């Protein structure tokens, strides 16, 4: 059975690329899903979705934070 929050993480993660403010939710969903899948002993799957969601969330967060830091300090 696929972990539902893996799909949620994927959707939030991809959305956090254009909408960076969603990235914390993607990271939270992705990491929770991965840990649930790992501890399910094979009963749950969806690792790829959760991982891509987590990565996309992290990417969104990195660019959001970098953009804010640039705006605040670089000029």
């Amino acid at each position, binding site marked *: 059975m696929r972990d539902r929050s893996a799909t949620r993480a*994927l959707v939030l993660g991809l959305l956090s*690329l*254009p909408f960076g403010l969603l990235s914390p939710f993607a990271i939270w969903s992705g990491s929770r899903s991965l840990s649930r899948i790992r501890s399910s002993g094979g009963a749950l799957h969806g690792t790829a979705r959760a991982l*891509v969601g987590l990565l*996309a969330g992290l990417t*969104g967060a990195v660019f*959001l934070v970098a*953009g804010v830091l*640039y705006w605040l300090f670089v000029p």
Partner: protein
Amino acid sequence: MIQRLGLAIAFVVLALLTYPGADLLSLAVRLTPAPVTTYPAVQGSLAWLHVEHPSGRTPFIADDQGRMVLLHGAIPGGLIDFWSGADHSKTAAPPFYPVDPAAYAGGRCPANYAIVKVPPLCEKDIEEMAAMGFNSIRLALTWSLLEPERGHFNLQYFDRIAQVVGWAKAAGMYVILDMHQNAYSRFVGRSDPPPLPGGSPADMWDNSGAPAWATITDGFPSETYSGQRELNPAVLEAENNFWYNRDGIQAEYIATVAMLARRFKDDSTVVGYSLFNEPMPGWNLPPGFEDLLLFPFYRRVIDAVTGVSDGLPCLTQIFMPAVCGFPDAGVHDLRHLFFLDTGLLREVTDFPTHLGLPVSSYPNLALGIHPYTHGYTVDALVLHQTPDKATYPWGGYDQTYSLAEREARAIGAALFVTEFGNDPTWDPLILANELAEQEQHLVGSAFWTWKENCAVNGNSWGMFDPIDCKQDLTAPKPVSGCLRTTREEMLARVYPVASADPNLAYRYDAKTGAFILRATSRFGDPPTAVLVPPDVTGAVSVSGAVAGEAVVSESASGRTVTVYPAGGEFSIEVAAAPLRPAAAC
């Protein structure tokens, strides 16, 4: 395995098309060296202007001697293709005033009528502007007149623009060519009765911009909400289609700007191009609108006109994501400025609607703001407060200017007020405060508007009183009412035209005509020039570290006081004295 690969590809493609791609491109732009440009002096022409980028402070507009230049101008609407008529059901009226320059040659001026928003723009207007001490004009143009049919430019309209630029040059005034629009187009139609609840039939009076062939409304009704011309489903859909380059219309627009630049490439009277007036987001929301649609669009225009190629190569007839540049149009104009208006919603907030990043490696950029504080900010539009009792903006009039300085630095641009104005009832409050902020922030501006026939809602906002728009609409009318005294007092003001000190401070008192400027310069710096318009009669005095006496030259624009610094602090003052009133009206 296939599913994993698909997910990975989706991730990479989406990242490239959205913020990660856009941010990486901005980083690359910041690291790209600026193109080398030369500014040859031409006898009898105005000096070329450019943007200086001093370390640690906001870039500024400068002349060929590196002096900070303050542009103080007005915006005439006579070249805008406004809707005209008395019958609102006829939505596709032909252009009202003649486009042929011959109709304006030798001091001639076509008759003015009350069925169009503005009077024609004639040579006398330019002379009157110069006599008030304006040193620049933001010349509002319309895409629907530049390219009335797809791919076919109206060269007569380009001649007409050149005619006005020639008048300005003769008067010693700079021109900003403004790709103007309001509510996208006057060809969005009018749904009467409005099919959606709560709407009113669109009033076409203010609409201008795109030609009919570039106005794709997809059948959305044209009706307005809350009395705002932009809150119109047809307008929002048409704007949206422009930003998404539906049917290649954005590419056509870019080609039009390139055509304009080709015509004025070697003319130093033209400061540069205001690329899109008051950009509406369509159905998009900030900050994505600004970061992924608007500023990438600006980069594309700059790519096309200058040939700097900051964006990536893409197909130009379909949606162009943020990383897409635009092919070199072969103009290679590397001497003019590009004025980049912020998104329209910033006018409503007086607050940044996105965190701007570098747009282009081309250095001559100016961020254009429209500070309509208490006119179009939320306190007026949403809370319906009067300016004297407004509870927003919390940072007062300064909020929009202080934040805009940071925005300009972030994108690597000078700051310029491409438009400001207000209901004349509030001149002592709004206009006085806006001008005080512009002095404090050392920012030039263009005043909306020079002349306006009449207003549908409230007062007209022109420098002059409106004409009679209630009786006999078919009869010729004067080009305006009387010059508004308060506006003349406040806008025919003393100001530094150019100075080697970009940190100078100055203050003009519109009530007494008194002026003081304090600056610091090194020995051998180029001179500081102050313009004293004819209305201001006070004696000029200079003190501090200056070499010799001030040189005062007279022209139709008044007295130009030129002071040569000797190294150190100096000041230039104009004594309080009665203002010379305008000619009786």
